[in-house]
């Protein structure tokens, strides 16, 4: 983000307990965290709770984010999804913040590159067979297990598994057209 402090610098200030750094990070990433939570939960109150929880966790454990493990935005998006699904399934948090390691080739701190990557993912979702996309969305946004998806759609378990994997492979190809993935 040109003209603004890098995420790493904000995290460093957060570690020394500066509330201003927290405010800046919130303004930068709360729309993303909230959007993910709202998409999963479809309930503004519950999404606000997740938003609050994710940022409180970051405040309490700023060391849990390690820049070597990925950039902050995607990391927060993944954490938001995990927490939203935990809320949806009324269970205790299943994932430790420290356990989430993210590898993305695109430089997502660069807004142009981020926009391009997001556009590629959207296009790939749009292009894939509907059943494939639906299987992926049920797993990703609704947090359903493949067994639950099979029960809901009436399809064999193996088909559901294959569809989900095919959808992820298509996503990977869209993001790395020349890559090996």
């Amino acid at each position: 983000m040109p003209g603004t402090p890098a995420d790493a610098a904000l995290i460093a200030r957060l570690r020394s307990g500066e509330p201003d750094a927290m405010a800046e990070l919130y303004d930068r990433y709360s729309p993303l965290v909230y959007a993910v939570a709202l998409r999963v939960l479809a309930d503004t109150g519950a999404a606000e709770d997740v938003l609050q929880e994710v940022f409180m966790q970051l405040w309490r454990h700023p060391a849990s984010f390690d820049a070597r493990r990925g950039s902050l935005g995607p990391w927060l998006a993944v954490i938001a999804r995990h927490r939203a699904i935990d809320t949806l399934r009324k269970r205790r948090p299943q994932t430790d913040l420290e356990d989430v390691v993210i590898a993305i080739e695109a430089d997502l701190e660069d807004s142009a590159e981020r926009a391009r990557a997001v556009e590629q993912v959207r296009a790939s979702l749009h292009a894939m067979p509907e059943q494939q996309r639906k299987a992926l969305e049920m797993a990703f946004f609704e947090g359903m297990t493949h067994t639950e998806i099979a029960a809901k759609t009436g399809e064999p378990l193996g088909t559901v598994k294959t569809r989900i994997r095919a959808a992820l492979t298509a996503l990977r190809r869209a993001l790395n057209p020349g890559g090996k993935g």
Partner: protein
Amino acid sequence: MTAHEQFAEDLALYALGSLGGEAVDSVERHLEECAACRQELARLEGDMALLALTTSGPAPPQRARQRLVKALGREPRSLRTVLMRRRWWTLAPVFASLVLAIFAILLWRENARQRDRMEALRADAAHNQAMIEEAKHLLGLLTDPSAMHVTLVAAQSKPQPAGKAIYMPRNGALVFMASNLPPLAPAKTYELWLMPMRGDKPMPAGTFKPDPQGNAMLMMPPMTAGVEARTFAVTIEPEGGSATPTMPMVLVGS
């Protein structure tokens, strides 16, 4: 996908959190030992993150920001650390004095107890020392080659070979003394035998050679405890002793 093919499908489901049951354990075990699959999982998480980034919608309401600011105000992380530190240092001397006082009382009590125990031990030690001195004195007399050994027999009869065994079956302690033993041929030895009460085979109880005057002593040879003896006997055996006695018997208990 570069992960191991047999795990690729499960790994994708695992990243999504859609895998259940034993398959989760199996994937996690594999991840622990496979760097390639860990890398693939990180890439899958990256795909998930990008998928999450495609979501868009209304901005969070202003009240959410206020709520967070309020919660942060209630949780002054750095301030609390400072306060906790200050409290600790303020109370440290009190704790230290308290701990010292308790420690001093405990030490004083322990000291008195140890003094009593030491007195008792000192008395025990003196008694033991006296007994040891007496035993050493007795042993010295029995084993000293310069001590005079005199065998008394009925007047006007020739001294005959004789032996005396003192045996305690409970702990297998044995002392054997013999006198007037004829000298041995080269490569021969005397051997003492325990004749068990229940008619079992004679048990070797040690070999010995007499001095030029025909006196010999065998003290505390290694014996099995708890064997009742009917009597003892002495035979002449080849050097080193035998497993069974060779007849005739030189001496036998009455």
